[in-house]
């Protein structure tokens, strides 16, 4: 499965770049990191020469020897004045939310890749894609839905993907997995003279929080847990 985007703006950028493919033109695609800029350009220019802006020497060599070049991490080029595009076809990928105004006069075309939070159509598309991918990896055979509030878009595709994987992984944990995870955690935190009390919260906190969600009333929850009402209240205060 190779997907690019359901977003009108992203597809327009794609089409526009496609229409300039055989022209000797320099374009820059900028936007927050992990918004799919590289994926888009890779789809258009799978066989072009790719160089990293971090290595200026490599960039200058490519500009002098090739007619079609993709420069990634363009924001890492410190001295922009030494760059001359001449008649090369260049696409620069710039991983910042805002473009350095000095670059505007350097490029014929400037494209802004919208962040994922601006592309609701893509959130849906890629959530489905990553769920499917994670289901295959974790060998999950049942249907899975992820609530939008459980998706992290703070780092665009990177956080979207990791939050979906995390969500699916946690949903599948068995008692054995939980024990294993806790043992790992305990190993790193078995220090001091109050370990029992400090680590007990790892178990009690989610237990009480879940109970409160399910039963709403503390009275009922105390009964279900089989502990004294005052003890429960004390623990709620402790963990709140």
């Amino acid at each position: 499965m190779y997907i690019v985007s359901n977003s009108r703006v992203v597809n327009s950028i794609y089409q526009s770049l496609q229409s300039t493919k055989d022209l000797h033109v320099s374009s820059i695609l900028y936007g927050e990191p992990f918004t799919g800029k590289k994926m888009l350009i890779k789809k258009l220019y799978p066989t072009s020469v790719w160089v990293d802006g971090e290595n200026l020497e490599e960039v200058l060599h490519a500009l002098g020897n090739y007619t079609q070049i993709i420069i990634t991490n363009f924001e890492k080029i410190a001295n922009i004045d030494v760059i001359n595009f001449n008649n090369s076809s260049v696409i620069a990928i710039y991983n910042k939310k805002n473009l350095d105004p000095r670059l505007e006069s350097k490029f014929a075309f400037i494209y802004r890749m919208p962040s994922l939070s601006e592309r609701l159509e893509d959130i849906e598309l890629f959530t489905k894609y990553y769920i499917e991918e994670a289901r295959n990896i974790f060998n999950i055979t049942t249907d899975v839905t992820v609530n939008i509030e459980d998706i992290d878009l703070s780092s665009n595709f990177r956080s979207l993907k990791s939050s979906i994987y995390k969500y699916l992984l946690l949903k599948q944990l068995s008692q054995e997995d939980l024990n294993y995870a806790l043992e790992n955690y305990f190993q790193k935190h078995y220090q001091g003279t109050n370990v029992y009390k400090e680590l007990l919260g790892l178990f009690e906190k989610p237990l009480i929080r879940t109970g409160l969600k399910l039963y709403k009333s503390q009275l009922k929850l105390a009964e279900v847990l089989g502990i004294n009402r005052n003890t429960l209240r004390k623990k709620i205060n402790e963990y709140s």
Partner: protein
Amino acid sequence: MNTPDFEFLANMDSNPLLVFNPNGKIVYLNDSAEILMGYVSRLEIYNLALNNAPKDYGMKNSKMELTYEHLNFYGISVGYKNDEWIAIKLYYRPLSKKYSHGDVKQYILTDINKMLSVAIHQYTIDKNIDIRLFADSELPHTLLNQNDFLKLLRIALSSFKEASYLDIMLKLGIGEHLLINGKSYKITILKLESNQRTTKEDKEIDELANRLSIVPNIQETSISFDIPIIQE
């Protein structure tokens, strides 16, 4: 054969053409004359026609220097066939400013229509603007620095970012030439016009155009470019 669309043909001519009735009212003017009317009064042109009209029905050509702001003309034709109307045509002076261009060997034979099309597409990605395009699709290709030319188009188009509509016209400049390095070149005219325009980038537009041997005409609500057709 259908009767040729004379109005269309008159609009293809970049020299202004006006027709007046006996009261001095304009009964017809071509696109180029509409531009002229931004710089000179109707009455002045009407009087110019009357003062230079042939004694009898027919047409009279006169050589004269006329300047209306930056518009320069070297002659006029005035004609009438009856007493119902009188027509005047003004002839633009070919630009004699000496231009020079860079190393043509570095330039690429380019389809200006394609350049315009990609520039418009890029411009409209995140904008909702009504663009009316009138482009002659048979324009000859020209040698250009594509990167700088597209940069020029991007900046020129972006000066209309506040406008609700944009009229774009691309046509061959009939009878107009540009002298570059002592050699005369036919020109393609690109005109962008709307109801409002920002002027912040005008200096950059002017500089870029000059670098490309393109003659810019930057006005309050329009920009036009005379683009030399270089083919060798």
